[in-house]
């Protein structure tokens, strides 16, 4: 460490946490020693299951009953007057320090707030639990903290209910809840993962102000190296329940020491890497390619979800026109609710088209009957977002991959299709023996590869990938993306690649289309869209995307601040 902090608010010494499970005890954290200095942002990074959440939650004693904790977690109050070893405290004593000495910001703001109480009441909950405030005092304090976290017009909004706030504002309220008692340290568990990139930038800005204005230390748990580069002062990398490396943020990004950290940083997708590939791919195409009939062509596509009683209809997709030519990868980017998934589902015949025209492999989807579309399904593959739920838990991987072959009568049953299934598993780099496993016996990345194998079973002309890597860890994501690229080159299918992550789309797509509130705001090659964005939304999106490089990110932040002020 470059600076010696005056005082540590949290001192974790040789912490080991194990959980009682059906198959015996499982250690989640082993011998972790960690300190958080006052007023610093410590990021704990690592893949899922690495123990980063468990480590951070142990600071608040927020572990489930099945957990056994050993070691010491010393939590000091902000003024340094008192110190407690959280591990040895009784539930009652824990209640006394929670909120006062340490507080928590949760991942999903929409579930962290109780829908039946006004937000002001919920922020004041901490005050009621810990101090003697009159109603008026508490209200004044709540209004004050709401103003400081950037809720406009707090005097009025203090009486509003959670559903009256947007996702980003809800997260601000959750942060206000944590700040109201002015704790020495805030645990932020993936505070921006559930938010859109543009909102994420605002919340990161707010967290930075928490540190600067409130002097609160923040323990930031995240898997997003861009967020780390943006916010953290110091980084601890966890792997397999242990800390493999600790360094300040500049050192970690410029010269990572541990091989795991190096690999992790190398697998983070960076903007601009894909442009070269796209150019190379387009140079290989034959002359007449641009005039060939598109696989998918949408003209003024409109998809409306009927509203419930006395509520207006919801327009998910509003007048989108796009085309995908044979063998081309179109990346579709947009925030949640922009209609990108709806377009993908409409192409696969899962959602009804309500207006305009959508031609898929020569079939008009507006008003299509399931019977006429079924033969076309053979030529379309679909990769779902969550590999955990897209496999029937009672079928083996081989049976699931054989399913399309059996349905389309290429094979009598799963056993007969086994030869082809083995080939497919090999193509996605899974060993044949994995065919006999059940989905829960595979890791997320392996399952997503099996999902790719299933979608490619019938050698489709068109593949729709709906956020195929958003549920995966960065290192796993890198492997799956690489595989997708290889397979695309080998099989030559056209693809619609849907993602919220510009960097991921940039890696794979020939062209990028940006959706904003149901309309297509920008479309072009990666170089065009990322290099010289025209639409203000695309500019904002691009500026909000944190890059995994602290120096570069500081520069981008300045641009973002300018953009958001104008």
């Amino acid at each position, binding site marked *: 460490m470059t600076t010696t902090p005056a005082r540590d608010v949290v001192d974790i010494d040789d912490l080991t946490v*194990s959980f*009682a*499970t*059906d*198959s*015996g*005890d*499982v*250690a*989640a954290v*082993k011998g972790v020693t960690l300190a958080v200095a006052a007023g610093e942002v410590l990021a704990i990074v690592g*893949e899922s299951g*690495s123990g980063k959440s468990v480590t951070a939650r142990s600071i608040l004693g927020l572990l489930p009953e*099945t957990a*056994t904790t*050993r070691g010491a977690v010393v939590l000091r109050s902000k003024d340094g007057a008192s110190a407690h070893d959280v591990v040895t405290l009784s539930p009652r004593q824990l209640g006394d320090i929670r909120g006062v000495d340490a507080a928590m910001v949760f991942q999903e703001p929409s579930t962290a707030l109780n829908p039946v109480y006004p937000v002001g009441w919920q922020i004041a909950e901490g005050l009621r639990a810990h101090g003697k405030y009159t109603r008026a005092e508490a209200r004044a304090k709540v209004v004050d903290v709401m103003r400081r976290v950037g809720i406009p017009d707090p005097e009025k909004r203090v009486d509003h209910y959670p559903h009256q706030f947007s996702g980003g504002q809800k997260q601000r309220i959750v942060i206000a809840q944590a700040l109201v008692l002015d704790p020495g340290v805030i645990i932020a568990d993936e505070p921006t993962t559930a938010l859109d990139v543009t909102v994420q930038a605002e919340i990161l800005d707010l967290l930075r102000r928490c540190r600067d204005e409130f002097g609160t230390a923040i323990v930031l748990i995240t898997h997003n190296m861009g967020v780390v580069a943006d916010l953290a002062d110091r980084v601890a990398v966890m*792997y*397999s*329940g242990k800390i493999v490396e600790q360094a300040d943020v500049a050192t970690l990004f410029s010269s990572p020491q541990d*091989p*795991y950290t190096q*690999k992790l940083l190398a*697998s983070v997708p960076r903007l601009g890497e894909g442009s070269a590939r796209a150019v190379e791919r387009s140079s290989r195409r034959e002359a007449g390619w641009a005039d060939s009939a598109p696989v998918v062509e949408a003209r003024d596509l409109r998809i409306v979800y009927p509203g419930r009683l006395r509520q207006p209809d919801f327009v998910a997709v509003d007048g989108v026109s796009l085309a995908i030519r044979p063998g081309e990868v179109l990346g579709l980017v947009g925030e949640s609710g922009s209609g990108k998934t709806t377009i993908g589902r409409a192409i*696969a*015949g*899962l959602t009804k088209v309500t207006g305009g025209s959508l031609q898929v492999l020569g079939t008009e989807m507006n008003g299509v009957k399931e019977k006429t579309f*079924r*033969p076309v*399904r*053979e030529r379309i593959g*679909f990769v*779902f*977002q*969550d590999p955990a*739920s*897209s*496999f*029937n*838990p*009672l079928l083996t991987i081989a049976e699931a991959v054989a*399913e*399309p072959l059996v*349905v*389309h009568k290429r094979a009598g049953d799963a056993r007969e299709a086994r030869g082809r299934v083995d080939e497919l598993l*090999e193509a996605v*780099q*899974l*060993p044949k023996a994995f065919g*006999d496993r*059940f989905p*829960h*016996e595979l*890791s997320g*990345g*392996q399952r997503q590869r099996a999902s790719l194998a*299933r979608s490619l079973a019938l050698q489709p002309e068109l593949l729709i990938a709906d956020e195929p890597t958003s549920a995966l*860890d960065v*290192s*796993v994501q890198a*492997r799956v993306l690489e595989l997708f690229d290889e397979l695309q080159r080998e099989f030559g299918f056209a693809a619609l690649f849907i993602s919220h992550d510009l960097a991921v789309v940039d890696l794979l797509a020939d062209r990028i289309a940006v959706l904003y509130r149901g309309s297509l705001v920008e479309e072009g090659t990666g170089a065009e869209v990322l290099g010289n964005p025209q639409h203000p939304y695309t500019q904002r999106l691009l500026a909000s995307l944190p890059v995994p490089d602290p120096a570069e990110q500081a520069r981008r932040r300045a641009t973002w601040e300018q953009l958001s002020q104008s």
Partner: protein
Amino acid sequence: MATVATPQAPAVEAGGRRPRGWRGLPVVRQLRQSVGLQRGMLVAGLLLTGLFLLTALFAPLLAPYEYNQLRDPAGPFGAQQAPSSEHWLGTTVGGYDVLSRVIWGSRTALLVIVAAVLMSIVIGVLLGLVSGYFGGWLDRVLVVIADAIYAFPSLLLAIVVGIVLNGGESSLAGGIMAAAISITVIFVPQYLRVVRAETVRIKAEAYVESARVIGAGQWRIMSRHVFRNATRTLPLILTLNASEAILTLAGLGFLGFGIEPTAAAEWGYDLQKALSDVTSGIWWTSVFPGLAIVLVVLGLTLVGESLNDLADPRLRTRRRGGTSPADVAETSVVPAAAAVPTELDPAKEVGL
């Protein structure tokens, strides 16, 4: 259950996975999983249920007399005889041997349970699947009918069905079927609702959508993807319903809508006949059939309740580790090879 071992199963054995073979069978797996009080409850329930099943199976060997036997070579048994060496539990007001009636009664009870539960499962699951999967007007009609059946007191309904079906007939098969069908009518709505709710949930799961994208037909999706997933919770309801079935049967018998004593032994009927004995100090005619009902219901309920608790990870108690630091977990934290940060990639090891 997902425990049927496939022919290729040996390739899949690895630590920490769901056990296969006999250890993976429904009740056996839960028994191995359970600890402490939950295990005690489950074991007690299984013992009582096992005793009940054995008695029912070997009734002809165990019972000293037939259920409708009134005399032996030495002459009539006589009514309301106190327990003696000939009649261990005495005789009833009708002159039957109490012990024999109690033992034979278990057989009637078992037949009724099996018939009733089988019929209600088949009908209920089928209707629930169709109702939940297709929805629309059929779904609404079925749910309204189910609600209407719920609105009736179950015993009253069973009596009505019993009268309609039975029409005064009282043979063994007729009596058992009448009781079983009246219980079925009460239980079908339960199964329908459970399976329907599960089906509606599963219909929205990604793997059903993926089957639709592949182009699978409705029946294939229903049979291959929805059916087995929707019926996973049924064993729990089944055990609980079995005990309810016994109570309904006994209730029917007690009210006089059950099986005649000459056709089969039935605990509820015997209890009713023993009513007047209680005031005159003749305890044996009522205590033993009553005890039989209580023990069987208790056994089945214990099994059902503990299976229910064990199926829910939040209610399940687990064996706590000792104070020794657990390095047990080395393999379980991340399924990855030690220092290689990318996920486990056996393809490389295989040499692809």
